[in-house]
């Protein structure tokens, strides 16, 4: 592989805000200026916009693909958009501003490296901005960019930018966000999106595109704590690989090397790594987020849902977990003492919701302790007891080994997502 290809990393980001904040215009601008909107797509949405008598080309039609969305002029679901520059490939999880808001943003945020929070320069930090920031913080999105949009409507004045910046910083002291940047821009006019603005001499920072192309994301994975959830056991049963027993999975943390001593959970037996296999040949080491296959030097009983870790660095093995739970099901609220199926890495167990500690007001971060009715889009702190032990890390330490989903055993729907505290 040439060096040039090697340097092209993948960056996933999520955009939060409503049409009123100019979110669609911003996405449209990023796609348009990076030449990722195709002529036939553009012609199609131009024709539809004209037919509907809309002023200009409605770039929201690019992301609102479903019939119901177009009919109602709303976004129902997370839409994924793709673009690339010579430096990086980008995946945008574009989340709607109104309907099922929390559910969709949580979904989009779960895999994002960066969150873009849009703020209207005229309106300043709003309830909605705070709500977005709280979710970005709960989901531990590593990098947050506050995009102060519509600077053209406040005459590109530095005061508007400074006010929003300091208001947001005051509020963010309550949150767990470490890397926050502020970029004044105009998505409509193109200031500081891809090209540097000629209208804001007072701003010395980067453009949004430069930020997205250069923000350091290779440390977003955990390279310290070795975690390998066994996903599938590979047994070829062929003459050539008669005794081959490979443990396939994706590395969720740390760097595994040939010869490393590993402990299999829950059995507790230890052995050493014999080889790290891939179709392209054996590897000397493996790290997140690689999918690999290990063979081990001793035959021990290991199956899907087990986890390989290092002896001196093990996750918590427990049947009791505390989570911040985001409830998704709009038909049935969370049942206290209810039983659900729980999925954590490749492990599936049954669980009981033991206690609801409090409900979180996601506009203010206040803990609500006199109303434990947890309905769709609510976030609550709960304790859960599982039938079998889980091997967990705190979500703040590892997003993959620190997260769970709950599945309703009657409907089979995914009804909640949880971050382990």
């Amino acid at each position, binding site marked *: 592989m040439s060096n040039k290809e090697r340097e092209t990393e993948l960056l996933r980001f999520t955009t939060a805000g409503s049409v009123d904040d100019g979110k669609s215009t911003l996405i449209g601008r990023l796609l348009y200026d990076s030449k990722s909107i195709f002529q036939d797509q553009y012609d199609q949405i131009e024709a539809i916009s004209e037919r509907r008598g809309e002023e200009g080309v409605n770039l929201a039609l690019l992301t609102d693909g479903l019939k119901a969305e177009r009919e109602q002029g709303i976004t129902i679901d997370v839409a994924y958009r793709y673009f690339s520059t010579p430096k990086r490939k980008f995946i945008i999880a574009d989340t709607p501003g109104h309907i099922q808001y929390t559910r969709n943003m949580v979904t989009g945020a779960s*895999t994002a490296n960066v969150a873009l929070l849009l703020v209207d320069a005229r309106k300043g930090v709003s309830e909605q901005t705070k709500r977005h920031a709280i979710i970005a913080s709960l989901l531990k999105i590593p990098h947050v960019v506050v995009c102060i949009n519509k600077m053209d409507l406040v005459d590109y004045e530095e005061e508007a930018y400074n006010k929003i910046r300091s208001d947001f910083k005051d509020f963010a002291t309550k949150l767990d966000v470490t890397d926050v940047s502020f970029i004044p821009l105009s998505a409509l006019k193109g200031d500081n999106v891809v090209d540097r603005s000629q209208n804001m001499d007072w701003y010395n920072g980067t453009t949004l595109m430069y930020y997205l192309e250069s923000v350091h994301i290779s440390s977003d994975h955990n390279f310290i704590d070795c975690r390998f959830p066994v996903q599938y056991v590979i047994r070829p049963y062929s003459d050539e690989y008669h005794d081959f027993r490979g443990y396939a999975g*994706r590395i969720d943390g740390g760097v595994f090397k040939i010869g490393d001593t590993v402990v299999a959970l829950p059995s507790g037996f230890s052995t050493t790594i014999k080889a790290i296999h891939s*179709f392209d040949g054996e590897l000397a080491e493996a790290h997140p987020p690689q999918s690999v296959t290990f063979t081990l030097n001793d035959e021990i009983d290991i199956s899907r849902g087990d986890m390989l870790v290092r002896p001196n660095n093990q996750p918590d093995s427990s049947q009791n977990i505390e989570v911040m739970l985001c409830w998704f099901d709009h038909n049935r609220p969370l049942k206290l003492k209810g039983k659900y199926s729980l999925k954590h890495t490749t492990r599936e167990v049954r669980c009981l919701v033991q206690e609801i500690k409090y409900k979180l007001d996601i506009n203010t971060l206040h803990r609500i302790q006199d109303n434990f009715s947890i309905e769709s889009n609510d976030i609550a702190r709960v304790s859960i007891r599982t039938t079998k032990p889980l091997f967990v890390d705190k979500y703040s330490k590892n997003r993959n080994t620190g997260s769970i989903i709950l599945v309703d055993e009657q409907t089979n729907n995914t009804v909640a997502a949880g971050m382990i505290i």
Partner: protein
Amino acid sequence: MNYSLSHLKELESESIFILREVAAQFENSVILFSGGKDSILMTYLAVKAFYPAKVPFQLLHVDTGHNFQETLDYRDNLVKEYGLKLKVGYVQDAIDNGYVKEESGINASRNGLQIYTLLDELEKGKYDAALGGGRRDEEKARAKERFFSHRDEFGQWDPKNQRPELWNIFNGRKQHGEHFRVFPISNWTELDVWQYLAQEKVPLPSLYFAHERPVIERDGILLAHSPFIPLKDSEKVFQEMVRCRTIGDVTCTGVWKSNAKTIDEIIQEVATSRMTERGGRSDDKRSETSMEDRKKEGYF
């Protein structure tokens, strides 16, 4: 020390994870193989995911009878090379038995008729997961697809009621009789697919490379001249240097003027193209939401 992956390696790893998850969560899965580059990529990734064991899924090809011969030759070679098992479902059988009615007229296509044969084969084979090479970047309805996409007992898709997918946890639980469509290469773009196939030196059907062939022009789209496409009086057959950007049924796969004879030339062409690859698919042009409509009925 640098532990970052290239975007292609990261996409590969994600797809392999999905493929293994299918093998672990479902009992009887099948790869929907169309002969196009996306299903070729998916099959190749499946070979990688289970190496050195064989791919634990069958291949299913829904044959409309209106094929490019190159596609069938390529398919049979691939099956032999990787020791795969192939099942073919024939749209012709459904027509002969009177389950579906052939479209008539100048733009007649069997594209829509495939849905019947597909659902019928899935039911007969008792498959609980069908893997498709759909990508979110190719079409606006597909942009809202999940990796694990739940289908009811009629094989229908309900886009407004999809299961949220978070982190890398995938929920494949279902009632008896229901099945899943799974899209392991959801996050790949057309350019990613080409760059990866070039990097991995995967052989491809000759249709993807520029070649001279007799074509006709209809509604601004070039179509390969074939006995399956009746001509209007005003239409003339002429020779052109063309290649396919997608491969499907002959009747609805547009061909593009191109001189790209190598994979590197194709990458150049794709990187600078101003038209989407499905811009030449007449099946998508029937209405603004024709993909969504077909998907709801059970199409891929």
